[in-house]
């Protein structure tokens, strides 16, 4: 096996004291970046990119990719502790992670999140090692129609799964679509729904909406309930890690399924966000305890985190082999490669073997380093919740405002965040689910774009969505997911009388 030989050479490159130090620095920086909402991994990597020009490309990519892993790990922390997702793909982690933290199980939730992140990433790296060329060819089959199919599947696997009435879910999702359509229409190049107001040119940034809806909305709700002193039962020792680890192996099937979803989404490249939502939606449907999802179920943390991390890792493959980044952070790394004189594309694996296998080896070791760093922090992080709410709430507010500001360096965004916060409060009070709204804001414009690109290439015929086996299968799965509750209803009615 030539690949294995190359990989071991890669390990030899990576295990140099300087590179190991860079890994620790990168992971710690990455976790900090992931914790600060707004300052996402892409920004962090972009800021540090110029610092790396004095290093060898291999050392530089190790530092930057470790920041990337760190940010992926770090995104889960604020989601679980404060219900504020630092990154788009940690939104689904809040659904069960935050309730767990409220029940005093923050340590368990964090351990589960970090461990399943690690499992997802490891699975994706092994896949990259073994089948990289094959997988790259598969990614080429994804045109606009196939991409729309993937988004369609993500929306469908989500609809009807919430506890709220389907029409409230649908209403929330439509509101999200409406918000997503503000700004420049990518297909016609025209401005939409901006009413001549130049602040709206950029549309509604997902992060502003999420920080407002989840973070601020949550604080308002808690204040109404009289500054309840929550999470005081949080344990403060490392035993919680070992205890959770004993639990985790029994969810192997769930992990495997989430890994596969994640890898697929990362390669296509649809990215980590649809992966985490889709994985959560499917887990909820299949799990025996599915009805309890949303009330602090550990499976609801494992599913999205595994898939998000698998997707985040797999997204590097199309970047290296095709030159198409699967995530914003991968896009910045791509720029870095070009500056270092490396040309991402089919020839990179042939011409720059040392670099590619050094990077892949660093994914293995970087993730192990990452897991060690974040797990040792678990008791410390869980302890944050012991601070009284009246002290921590203002701090969260400040953190949210800084986060919202740093997305576009605009004070208007801070105002928007407050507006979203109030809207989030009222939506929660009236039992409208926030998740579909957020999902639609994140993926709405991408789905719309893919849909219209498909129709352009088919001269307006909808048959393009069934024009080959690949897209047909994805769309079919989507339709089954959409009507699943109806189908299972009919099924049980048909079966019901027969057994009775």
């Amino acid at each position, binding site marked *: 096996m030539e690949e294995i030989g190359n990989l071991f050479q890669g390990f030899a490159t990576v295990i140099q004291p300087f590179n190991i130090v860079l890994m620790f620095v990168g992971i710690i920086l990455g976790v900090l970046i992931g914790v600060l909402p707004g300052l996402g991994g892409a920004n962090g990597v972009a800021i540090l990119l*110029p610092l790396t020009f004095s290093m060898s490309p291999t050392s530089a990519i190790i530092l930057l990719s470790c920041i990337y892993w760190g940010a992926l790990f770090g995104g889960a922390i604020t989601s679980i502790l404060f219900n504020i997702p630092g990154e788009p793909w940690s939104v689904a982690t809040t659904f069960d992670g935050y309730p767990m933290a409220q029940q005093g199980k923050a340590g368990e939730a964090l351990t589960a999140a970090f461990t399943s992140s690690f499992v997802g990433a490891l699975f994706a790296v092994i896949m990259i090692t073994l089948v990289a060329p094959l997988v790259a060819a598969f990614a080429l089959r994804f045109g606009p129609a196939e991409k729309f199919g993937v988004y369609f599947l993500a929306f469908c696997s989500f609809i009807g799964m919430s506890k709220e009435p389907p029409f409230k879910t649908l209403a929330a999702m439509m509101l999200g679509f409406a918000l997503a359509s503000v700004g420049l229409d*990518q297909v016609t*190049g025209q*401005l939409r729904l901006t009413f001549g107001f*130049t602040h709206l040119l950029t549309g509604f940034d997902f992060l502003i909406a999420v920080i407002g809806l989840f973070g601020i909305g949550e604080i308002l709700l808690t204040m109404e309930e009289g500054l309840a002193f929550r999470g005081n039962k949080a344990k403060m020792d490392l035993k919680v890690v070992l205890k959770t680890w004993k639990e985790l192996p029994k969810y192997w099937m769930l992990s495997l399924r989430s890994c596969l979803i994640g890898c697929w989404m990362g390669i296509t490249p649809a990215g980590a966000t649809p992966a985490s939502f889709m994985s959560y939606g499917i887990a909820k449907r299949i799990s025996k305890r599915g009805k309890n999802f949303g009330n602090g179920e550990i499976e609801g943390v494992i599913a999205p985190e595994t898939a998000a991390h698998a997707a985040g890792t797999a997204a590097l493959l199309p970047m290296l082999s095709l030159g198409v980044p699967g995530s914003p952070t991968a896009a910045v790394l791509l720029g870095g490669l070009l500056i270092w004189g490396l040309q991402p594309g089919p020839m990179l694996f042939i011409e720059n073997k040392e670099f590619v296998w050094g990077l892949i080896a660093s994914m293995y070791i970087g993730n192990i380093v990452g897991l060690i760093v974040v797990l040792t922090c678990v008791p410390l992080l869980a302890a944050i919740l012991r601070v009284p709410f009246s002290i921590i709430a203002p701090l969260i507010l400040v953190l949210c405002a800084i986060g919202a500001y740093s997305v576009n360096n605009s004070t208007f965004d801070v105002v928007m965040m407050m507006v979203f916060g109030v809207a989030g409060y009222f939506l929660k009070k009236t039992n409208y689910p926030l998740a579909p709204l957020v999902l639609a804001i994140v993926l709405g414009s991408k789905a719309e774009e893919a849909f219209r690109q498909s129709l352009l*290439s088919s001269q307006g015929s909808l048959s393009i969505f069934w024009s080959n086996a690949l897209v047909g299968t994805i769309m079919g799965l989507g339709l089954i997911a959409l009507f699943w509750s109806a189908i299972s209803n009919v099924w049980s009615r048909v079966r019901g009388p027969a057994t009775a």
Partner: protein
Amino acid sequence: MKHPIRNFTYSAVAAVAATMMIAPASAQKWEPTRPVEFIIPAGTGGGADIMARTIQGIVTKHNLMKQPMVVINKAGGAGGEGFLDVKGSANNPHKIIITLSNLFTTPLATGIPFNWKDLTPVAMLALDEFVLWVNAEKPYKNVKEFIDAAKAANGTFKMGGTGSKQEDQIITEAVQKSTGVKFTYIPFRGGGEVAVQLVGNHVDSTVNNPNEAVAQWRAGKVRPLCVFDNKPLPYKEQIADGKSWADIPTCKSQGLNMDYLMLRGIFMSPKATPDQVNYYVDLFKKVRETPEWKDLMNTGAFNQTFMTGAEYTKWVENEEKRHRDLMKEAGFLASN
């Protein structure tokens, strides 16, 4: 907040230094006193982004500026966000912006309140070329065979490009006008994505920049048919199947009457003084001398024209007029 004591120390040191060194001219020259913001009116990973980040790296590595350079992407509204930001920063000499053709196309297509005259021109760094690409599996080897195939397809031939009503679509319109062939133009978000859609056969042709498609060309996945310039490119280094950039014929010589180059230039905030403009002109002259910059020019097969001052302003003026005409003909102008 200023620290009076430290300020005093600085001015004392400066006074001593000024009397000791007989260089009064350099003492008066303007220099950045705060970090310089370098705005990119486009997303991460695109051509402008790569160029700006390379410049930032060069400036940092070679210590060309005492203050740090901070790169910020403001891509919203097809770059309108970035342009309006610099427009609103009059009298702030610590803000510069790199431009692409959206300097003209965005305000013309969307009607946002912006014109390049709102900014202060600094320098043209280079011009980006455009090449007509097809998938290497396709039988057509030259422009004529390609156009014949497109004609036979009767309007269903798909041209992929970056953005809507921007440079790629303007070129497509011009090709249509010159040949009478109708294409279906499909806009994507970035040049890299367009190149992969071509390799995956989801579109039939593209007008990617050299930088965006070169990796696929080297792997033998795509084939260049012609370059939209008046003369062939000067780069003779072999890239794929024994061919170099210099071997690609011009589109004009192949009967496609269109030439188009995209500005990669620098502007700064309104109301900048000549001193401030000169500082940045000098800075970019130094950047152009570095080996890293030359590498970038080589891999991207750029047209290395450099212009400043009145010459640059005149060039931009002409380009604006040309874009207005091209977009008017294509019906791309904002209705209001």
